[in-house]
Each structure stands twice: as C-alpha cells, then as structure tokens.
C-alpha cells in the first residue's frame, strides 16, 4: 500500500494554475523527492496532502485515509515542515515547540527536541524573534521531527541553512527513513534530492513531467566529451547531418568540447577517423542535469 497517493489531483486558484492532473504514489519507507522550480506547484500539492487546501478535483490519500480538507487527516502520524516556516517571534523556540507537541500525539517529545537541538546546534531558550533566518529554519526542522512519525512531509527543509547543517538535516532524514518513516522531500535542488532520495517526481508549471529513479533523471541529461586532437592536426567540423543531437560547447586549435544525448557510439565512430591525443568525459553536475532536463521538457 502506498503511504501517499495522489489521483488526478487538480488545484486551481480561480483562473490561476496550481497543479493539474497529478497522479503519483509514494511507497512505504521511501524517501521521495519532489522537484521543481519555485511556482511549479510543489507547495500546492503538499498543502492538498495536508488538507490545508481543498483540491478542485481529484483526491489524495495519506497513510491509507482519504484526505478531508481541514479535518487534520492522520496528522498525529505526520511530521510537516512548511516551505515558509514562521512561528511566534515573542516566544522562545522551546515554548512554541512545546505547544506544537501538545497539539500532536501524546508521546513525550522533550528528549527528542533536546537531542535535535544539540545536533542542529540551536539554543531553544532564545526568543524566536531574536534568531537568525537559518536558526529559525532549524526550529522548523525540529517542529517537523520532534514527533516520531510514520510520514514526514518536508517542503524545502534546508532552505537558509549552511552546508554543514544542511548535511545534518539530510542525515536526520535518512535516519527517519531507517526507522521506518516515509518521507516526501520537496526541493528545487536536485543535488539535495539525489543525496537522499531513490526516486523523484519533477513538476513543471503544475504538471508532472517525470517520475523516475534519480539515477535515470540524472542520466537523461546531456553527456559531454572533450577531445584533444594530435598536435598539428586540424580540429574537424562537426557533421550535423551524421550526428544529430550533438552540439559543440567550445572549440579551439586542438580541442573540441561537445555535448551529446544517448550513446556515444556515433560520436566515437566519427572521431575514430582522426588522429586523437586523448579523450575526457567531464561530469555533468546534478544542477546542470536538472536544468538540461527541464529545458528539454519545456521544449522550443
């Protein structure tokens, strides 16, 4: 049984688009990445899953129950971090977190809260209003993780955090998964998602454009080849008719840097006819892969 199930979920804000006809499922015990740029519909989906927004059509199920808007469906078993975490500035982090814990399940959260604060290097007894943006985000992470829940829905959990603390948050996410929780991790950062997720969905303008293992998403980007031709030889012109999908990134007197899609077979056959000094395959960064993927899906 899927822990999260969206069936033909559509949410419109009047004439404006929210999300359109989304269908996907998240398996129990999975860390699922939910990728897309700002405004692509990630937060709208999450708010529908949390029952904070009523879908225009379609349905969501969490932990086996259909989500009824405003009815706190299964919230005792869900840890949630909103994308824009804000909390009462006049109270200390501990006071606010205690209230939130009291509004949740009955299990004792004090130990867990202190443990999380230690790991995130946060003083819970300072007023939230006096905390930096990054420290306020840490309060949000504790808000989501202070209960031992079956499902975590995290909307951009590392936003505003430094790389060290981001790494700790990703570790906490992995640990939650190891202890049996299912996690929906929304982000616009493919590297972050790739670090912890096995599978991800990509949203563009409210529509799901991909649902695949991370490795496949990364693979679908362009690959690169840098060729050094033997000294004294000419760098040949790229035969566009024989090598569709291959483009020149840069070229100088003895090197050619190209990008291609699919297999390298045709490119290698072509360059085999020239005197080659060496070949390198520069890694495409995850971010580049994401951007390429996104641009390709956007079409001309």
């Amino acid at each position: 049984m899927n822990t999260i199930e969206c069936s033909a979920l559509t949410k419109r804000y009047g004439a404006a688009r929210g999300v359109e006809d989304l269908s996907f499922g998240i398996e129990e015990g999975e860390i699922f990445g939910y990728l897309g740029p700002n405004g692509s519909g990630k937060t709208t989906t999450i708010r529908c899953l949390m029952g904070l927004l009523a879908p225009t059509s379609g349905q969501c199920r969490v932990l086996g129950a259909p989500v009824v808007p405003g009815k706190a469906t299964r919230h005792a078993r869900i840890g949630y971090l909103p994308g824009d975490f804000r909390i009462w500035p006049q109270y200390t982090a501990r006071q606010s977190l205690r209230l939130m814990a009291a509004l949740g399940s009955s299990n004792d959260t004090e130990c867990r809260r202190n443990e999380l604060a230690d790991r995130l290097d946060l003083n819970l007894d300072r007023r939230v209003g006096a905390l930096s943006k990054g420290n306020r985000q840490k309060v949000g992470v504790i808000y989501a993780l202070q209960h031992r829940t079956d499902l975590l829905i995290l909307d951009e959990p590392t936003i505003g955090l430094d790389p060290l603390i981001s790494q700790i948050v990703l570790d906490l996410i992995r640990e939650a998964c190891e202890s049996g929780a299912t996690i929906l991790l929304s982000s616009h950062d493919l590297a972050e998602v790739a670090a912890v997720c096995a599978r991800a969905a990509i949203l563009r303008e409210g529509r799901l454009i991909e649902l695949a293992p991370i490795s496949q998403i990364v693979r679908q980007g362009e690959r690169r080849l840098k060729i050094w031709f033997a000294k004294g030889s000419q760098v040949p012109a790229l035969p566009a008719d024989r090598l569709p999908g291959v483009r020149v990134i840069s070229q100088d007197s003895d090197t050619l840097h190209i990008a291609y899609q699919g297999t390298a077979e045709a490119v290698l056959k072509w360059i085999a006819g020239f005197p080659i000094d060496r070949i390198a395959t520069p890694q495409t960064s995850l971010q580049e892969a994401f951007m390429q993927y996104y641009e390709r899906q956007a079409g001309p």
Partner: protein
Amino acid sequence: MSNERSPFPIPLLRFWVLRILPAWFFIGLVIFLFQIMICAMVHDDKRIEAWLKLLDMLPAIVKTSLGGDMLQAGNTSALIAIGYQHPLIMLLYMLFAVGVPATLLPGEIQKGTMELILARRVTKTQAYICAGFITVAGMFALVLVMFLGTVLGTSIYDFGPALRLYPFFKSAVIGGLLASAVGGIALLAAASFQRNIAVWLTVAYLVLNYFLAVFTEWWTRIKWLQPATIFHYVDGPRIFNESAWPLDDVAVLLSLLVVSTVAGAVIWSRRDLQL
C-alpha cells in the same frame, strides 16, 4: 481508521487565552474602575446636578448618547447606568470584540502560524471554536466585571435601599449578549476576510449602528429605523422599569449571535486559507 477524531485542542485554547489575557485584564480593569468612578460621581448630589446642567448646555445628542431623558437628578439607577453605555466603555468592548477574532483567526494566518496549528491534530472547526469561545466568553466575563464594579461601587458609596442591583444584573447580561453578538459578527468577518478588512468591516458596522441608534433616538423623524440597529435591543428604560426580562430583545440578540457565528464557521471551514 479514516475517521479518527482529533481531540479538542485544549492546549491551543489555553495558549490563545494566555495571549489575550493581558488585553482582557486591562480592558476589564478600566471598565471595573469606571463603574466605581461613576458611583462616586452619582453619590455626590451637588456634583451630579452640576454635571446634568453641563449636559443640558451641550448638544442634545450628547445627552441622548448617555441615556437621554432618564438622566435626571434623583434617578440614581439611570445615572449609574451611564457607566454601561458610555462611549469609552463601548469603545473598549468594541476593541475586544473586534480584536480577538481578528488576532486569532486571520492574525494567525498572516503570521504563518495557522498553517503550523492546522498541520497538527487540530481541525479548522476546532480552531474556529477556540476563537469563538474566547471571544464570547471574554465578552461575558467583561460584562460580569462591569457588574461587579457596580456592586462594589454601590457598596462603597451607599445609595440606600431604593437602589436595586437586579436591573443592573439584567442590563449586564443583555449587554453581554449584545457584546457577544458583536463578537459573532466580528468572527464572521474574521472567518471571511483578511485581518485588516475584517477589522474595518466590523468597526464600520458598529460605528454605523451606534450612530444610527443615537440619531434615531434624537431625531424622531427617523425613529422607524431604530429596530435596524443592534443597540435598539438593549432597552435601558425597559430593563430598569419592568421586572420581566425582555425576552423578545434577548431572542433577537441570541439569533444574531448564533446566525453570525454559524455562518462564520461554515465560511471558515469551506474557504481556502491564504496561508
């Protein structure tokens, strides 16, 4: 189980009560002291005569807004009751009635904290009930404080056996209903709009009603408009002169409270919050 119920969020209710308490305490203290001050003034015959003379020199509408023809030397009850309808007291009640729902519902939404609350085991309806309870109970508690101020004031300054406190109690209860009905309207506005719009709409409604009540009392040609104002249903002379409770007025105020509160609840539960 898909229909597991969320327990009533007592911690949220307690948290909100503690947030509102300083404002409630301040308003209650001013209202309480004001009643004692009025008793002190009314107790001094010379001072009250001078004050009534001054009132007669001012535009008639001022006297109307404080109790009209009932304000006469010797009519102790009416004079003490000034403390129940003085514009300052009205303003304080209005501040509480408008401020509490606006702070607790759209205020929490705009602060971003309603999203956190509703992401826990709290339904939208429960959050609304908490805000509604604090508004209505807070109003009645203020009215009780006002009555206690009168009780203390009349025991400090002896007005003799002719002064009966029961009409003041009736007046306080009906005043509490009026204040709660205003709170219901404020809840309806708070459930439907953003904070500033909700505040302005409720204030506009109250100011319109207040001045309509004063003008219809003062200008007989528009007297027929009196039932249109909410203040018409707290009829001072009737409360003080008749021993029976004005049940028809009570019914109107109760209906207004129930209808506005329920309408607010329906709108609140159905609309997407601007989180």
